[in-house]
């Protein structure tokens, strides 16, 4: 590549440009505010991991000894050599070595056949159902958002990583915050004063205009509290999880997100719910390599994160929930992939989790129009989190819902 095109390339891709801009804003000028309201040890913290696209549950928790499974998926079924056996004829995808170690420590719960009545095959409808916890009625608030509505306003209470608010954090009165991976930088000097004036409420504001002003106010509060923390390095676990399942790149976006979460938990941020995500699970084509890589990322980064939590004394406080909007069709399609399906496994991991299987494994013999039958309602999972971890009446957040999975140990 000649130098002219290289320079043009660097200009166009922005490499080297960002530092210049950030320097002109001087992160050094951000107040070195200590967190004024540390989270007491012993307080449960929930980390919600959303897998976007519809993760293929049958190639995640694999019924590898079932001949129907093998016959339904020529070319994309996993045989005994490619999985990590657990029990009851089920095995983890071979890339999930980290999860196997959590399983052996009885810190991993696998909830089987999770879904809701009359499954919807649309990504958007189904994700909206999972994030709102309302399968029958379309509502725009999220389940964590409605929990936030019951709490005093604090932009630190629930935080999503990324630049766009995930719907699960939107309440009808309050919304969670979002934090970009690079942290937040606010302007200094006179501009800061003038901008903080822009963040004040004004009587004539429509709800959206008021929210725009609030987002500016939250920026000042969040960056004051969070900015200095993000400059620290992430906690180093005593024992790094083994990478025996292959190197899936420790550099993935999910592990970066969890690193930021780990740093903030390590300084006792008063945040009760974190939302992180990973996309790419819509494997209509060439599923094997793509999904294996993604599941390796999920397993490695969460296992590493839980080791970090051990190091900072939060291993009993932190619980990780992993879900996707649906599983996939039992039969493979023509493109070495699978189409949208229904029930799938949910993972719950952490110190309070009583490891093992929950819910029944859906039958491969009795299908509903080619799809797995749902054996566990996802609201039973949320119910346990709301009641046992967030200390909230589940029926108030999830319209009248009464039951929950016995997945958490008594505090």
């Amino acid at each position: 590549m000649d130098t002219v095109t290289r320079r043009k390339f660097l200009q166009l891709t922005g490499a080297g440009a960002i530092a210049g801009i950030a320097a002109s804003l001087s992160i050094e000028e951000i107040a070195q505010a200590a967190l004024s309201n540390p989270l007491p040890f012993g307080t449960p913290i929930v980390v919600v991991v959303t897998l976007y696209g519809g993760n293929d549950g049958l190639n995640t928790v694999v019924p590898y000894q079932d001949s129907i499974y093998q016959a339904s998926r020529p070319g994309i079924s996993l045989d005994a050599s490619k999985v990590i056996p657990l029990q009851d004829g089920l095995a983890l995808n071979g890339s999930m070595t980290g999860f196997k170690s959590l399983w052996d420590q009885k810190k991993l719960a696998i909830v089987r056949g999770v879904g809701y009545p009359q499954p919807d095959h649309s990504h958007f409808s189904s994700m909206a159902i999972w994030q709102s916890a309302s399968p029958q009625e379309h509502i725009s608030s999220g389940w964590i958002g409605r929990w936030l509505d019951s709490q005093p306003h604090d932009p630190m209470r629930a935080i999503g990583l990324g630049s766009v608010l995930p719907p699960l954090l939107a309440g009808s009165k309050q919304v969670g915050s979002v934090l970009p991976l690079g942290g937040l930088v606010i302007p200094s000097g006179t501009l800061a004063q003038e901008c903080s004036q822009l963040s004040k409420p004004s009587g004539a504001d429509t709800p959206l205009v008021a929210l725009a002003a609030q987002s500016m106010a939250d920026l000042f509060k969040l960056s004051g509290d969070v900015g200095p923390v993000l400059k620290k390095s992430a906690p180093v676990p005593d024992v790094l999880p083994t990478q025996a399942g292959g190197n899936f790149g420790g550099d993935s976006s999910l592990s970066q997100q969890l690193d930021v979460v780990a740093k903030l938990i390590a300084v006792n941020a008063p945040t009760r719910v974190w939302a992180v995500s990973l996309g790419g699970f819509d494997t209509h084509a060439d599923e094997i390599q793509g999904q294996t890589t993604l599941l390796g990322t999920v397993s490695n980064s969460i296992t590493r994160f839980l080791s970090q939590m051990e190091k900072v004394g939060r291993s009993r406080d932190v619980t990780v929930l992993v879900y996707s909007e649906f599983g996939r069709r039992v039969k493979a399609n023509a493109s070495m992939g699978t189409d949208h399906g229904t029930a799938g496994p949910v993972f719950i991991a952490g110190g309070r989790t009583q490891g093992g299987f929950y819910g029944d494994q859906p039958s491969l013999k009795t299908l509903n129009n080619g799809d797995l039958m749902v054996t566990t309602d996802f609201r039973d999972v949320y119910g346990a989190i709301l009641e046992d971890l967030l200390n909230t009446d589940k029926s108030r957040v999830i319209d009248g819902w009464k039951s929950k999975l016995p997945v958490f140990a008594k505090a």
Partner: protein
Amino acid sequence: MADLLDRLELSRLSHRFGFGPKPGEFAQLLNLGIDTARKKILTAPISDAAAESVTPPVLTDLGFFPTQKTQAAADFNLARQLQINALYTWWLDRMALADQALIERMTWFWHGHWATSYDKVQYALPMKIQNDTLRQYALSDFWQMSRAMVQDPALLYWLDAGQNSKKSPNENLARELMELFTLGVGNYTETDVREIARGLTGWQVYRSGATTQFNSLAHDSTPITFLGHTGSYDAQGISDVLVGEDACEQFIPARMWFRFLSTTNPMPSDLPTAFANRDINALVKALGRHGQMRVVGNSQVKSPVEWFIAVCRALSITPSKLQNVGYAISTLTNMGQLPFNPPNVGGWPADEAWLSASSAQFRLSFAQYLVKQGDLSYLAKDTTDQGIANWLGISEFSFRTKSAFAAAGNDPARLAVLAICSPEYVVNA
């Protein structure tokens, strides 16, 4: 002196059916009177010299991906990067420069509707060809637009329809075609999805060259039954049936209502009749002339691209001529919206999703960067509250924002940063 509701309506017309006024344009439109101004904004020009002055990028067929970690792969990836960057700036320039931005605005709407991402397509050429198609039909006939899109190479590749054979069909395109592009969720059954998937088999996509080919051997020509119709259908025949459905007459107007008027208030029941003939132009006019345009409360948040382009227009900035185009592109990426890269086939989110502390931060740094490179001469002539509102096409500023202006004195650069970051600009009342 135009009354406040005229200002509100004109502000909405200017920002939602265009990308906001160029310096002086809002005052001129106010002087014309609301009826003439409305007609002007809602009528697409025969040609737009400013938009046409933007040189289209030279995109070539780059062929298949070479073996990884070779010099050929490095050159190939560089060429790919240069082509997509040229495509980004070409469209951003068109949006920012167009004298009458209705066509670019509608192309932007359709890009979010038939949302296809370079992230998977990986070549600029098919993305450009799709963009040309969306612009060609942006204000014309939805029957033709849908027929063109069901054989668009980028869309077919994006939704795996290029690997679709009769032996075991892939349902991705079939489902999204009904759910997101023509009918809306709830207006079809799972059986319809599976049947249409069979009808859509047989297409093969040559991605880098942006061509498609129909392979009759891979096509399932046995009759399919969907939405009460039975017969042997090809992609265009399926498209015609879907566009003819009553649900389509409701769905497209509802999507446009959602993106142009309100994401919370329900669509008025008289809007779909304007789409009875599937005439997009008639629907856009009906929407822009609707009484709801003067109803307080139909606020909408500017998405990052909409905000960026509106600022470029107000500051007479040509995006490709920014000192560091890469910074602009990476900031749009950080804000969550880069053209040609929607997050998924449902397009970008709306309203509240753009109002986070994180977006506020990126907007603030971006605003300072842009104001430094912008032309402030028009603003400098009148730095009163009213002068700033007219420059940016805002109906009125709140007491809060006026107080911030007062503290900034007469410095046009400081006033400009505050004004384009103000809640009244970020949210179009």
